[in-house]
């Protein structure tokens, strides 16, 4: 489950930035790959495709460092959503 979220994120980020070189550990912030417009795209993607609204406290540099950390964040939040039904 975790792996496929990661893959989908990598695919999405590759297509949204036009950079095919992005992998699971590519730094997204210092590299400038994520800017405010692509961040919005990412949040909208997670909400509409993964049905998860990312909260205030979760939008931090540590959690958005690379596709792997973002996948981790999403995976940790999803079961809660499922439980809430």
């Amino acid at each position, binding site marked *: 489950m975790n792996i496929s979220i990661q893959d989908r994120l990598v695919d999405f980020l590759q297509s949204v930035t036009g950079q095919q070189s992005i992998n699971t550990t590519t730094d997204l*912030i210092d590299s400038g790959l994520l800017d*405010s417009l692509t961040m919005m795209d990412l949040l909208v993607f997670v909400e509409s495709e993964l049905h998860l609204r990312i909260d205030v406290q979760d939008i*931090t540099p540590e959690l958005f460092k690379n596709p792997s950390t973002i996948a981790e964040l999403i995976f940790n939040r999803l079961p809660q959503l499922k439980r809430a039904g």
Partner: protein
Amino acid sequence: MHSTTDYLSKLLLIKSGITSNWDYQFNSTEHLKSTSSLSLGDLFCEMATRQVDQPAISTSAATWNYRSLLTAAHRISDQLKSHPEYESGHRVILLVPNSIEYIAAFYGIILSGGVVVPLPANTESGSLQKILESTEALYIISTPQVLKRRPELKNLQSETIRNADEFQEINQTTTEEPSLSYSDHLAAIFFTAGSSGRPKGVMLSHSNLISNAQSIQEYLELKADERPLCVLPFHHAFGNSVLQSHILLGSHLILDANTLFPESIVKALNHHQCTSFSAVPDLYRILLERTSFQKTVFPSLRSMTVAGGKLPHHLSLDISQHISPARFFVMYGQTEATARLAYVPPEHIAELPDGCIGHAIPGVTLEVVDEKGRSIEPGAVGELRARGANVMRGYWGDATETRERIRNDWLYTGDLATKDEAGWITIKGRRNALVKISGHRVHPIDLEEFAMRSFPILQAVAVPFESKDVGTRLALYVKPTPNDNPLSVSEMNAICRTNLPRQMVPDHIQIVESFPLNHAMKIDRAKLSLNTE
């Protein structure tokens, strides 16, 4: 306090490889008004010398005082001047993200008598190349981190900024040298870059920057002890105006938040006891919807400002009420006017209509006129034009476009507006199709031209539309060439993503057989916009 060398070691002076075979003659004997005979460099040095021990800039890692900033700027200036081919008036590209280094380099170039050409670190290489050739910039100032993602610059000759010890000539007299620039000389060129079409360079003189900064200081009632939280990119006019208006007052700039992580803005505002904050409408939306902004009190805050697009009136009111007694300023302007042209006095915000931009800033005159430049009756729609010391000197290398925008010393803003009997100005729309996407200027026609060049199509129409929760975005409608192999929507999307700046990438692409026409037999763009929503 970190030593100056720590930050300057992050800067690189790169030789562009461009050979300049003419020097742009900027004729300062033209009959233009200057508000002062001092240059930006003079004012900066004066202020920094007066405030040497006061904090100038804080990041998450360190705080610099004005002494460090002044020293750094002088070192950069001296290094530029140490190159025999570098002369006053030469353009220097500044390719550095918001940081202490950016500010030191900006004033360093100014002190050397150069013209700053600030650009986003992620400028597309095609645009960067065009701007390099157009400005004939001999030097680019950047950082190793930016170069990591810019293969085209990695192989150019570069040098680090030398330590004070290595410089025999550095001594007290450096600060007493007469200014190499005068108020009518160019100080900076701000390019509106895009992948298609020619990037236009707005030429701003020392006088432009100084007059706008002083006018802004006046109507915002800025004090020397301001602590502005700076998140806007300094390479755009709005961010630059925050930089200039505060540095020239000797204020303490806080650079400890990232627009990517909006909650960091809320935290920084209180952590650094910030007195002010400026942002574009999209960021205020995000603050209201995705952060703890509405639940937080900001005891040190004196003002917040918005510009670079329209914020829905009810949101302006929400913010106004929430931050009270701190004041919320709705503002209007454009790069061609240095930055600011008008503002809404906060006490009037509730009673004025949606789209109202208030009245002119001190020193500027705003008029609404018809196509012949004649004034019209209150309430009638015409074009907004402006006069003042902040009106740009023109577009770099483009006398034709300049003549289109500046006629008889009036800057034609390209915005349609009304002025009521009390003198309040309301924006009604654009004369041309320019749109603002998250604060960025985008010409739909540039996207259409890109599509025509890149896809096997007969026709392309790009229109803005309101994307739910996100704001204005572009939609692209294309009519494929009948006998060619068509591209799918996802293929076209991928090509756009790889080649265009994000703000120009259409969020919606649709293949059509024909386009709806209106009663004037022209493509009904409004219908296409509505269709997308």
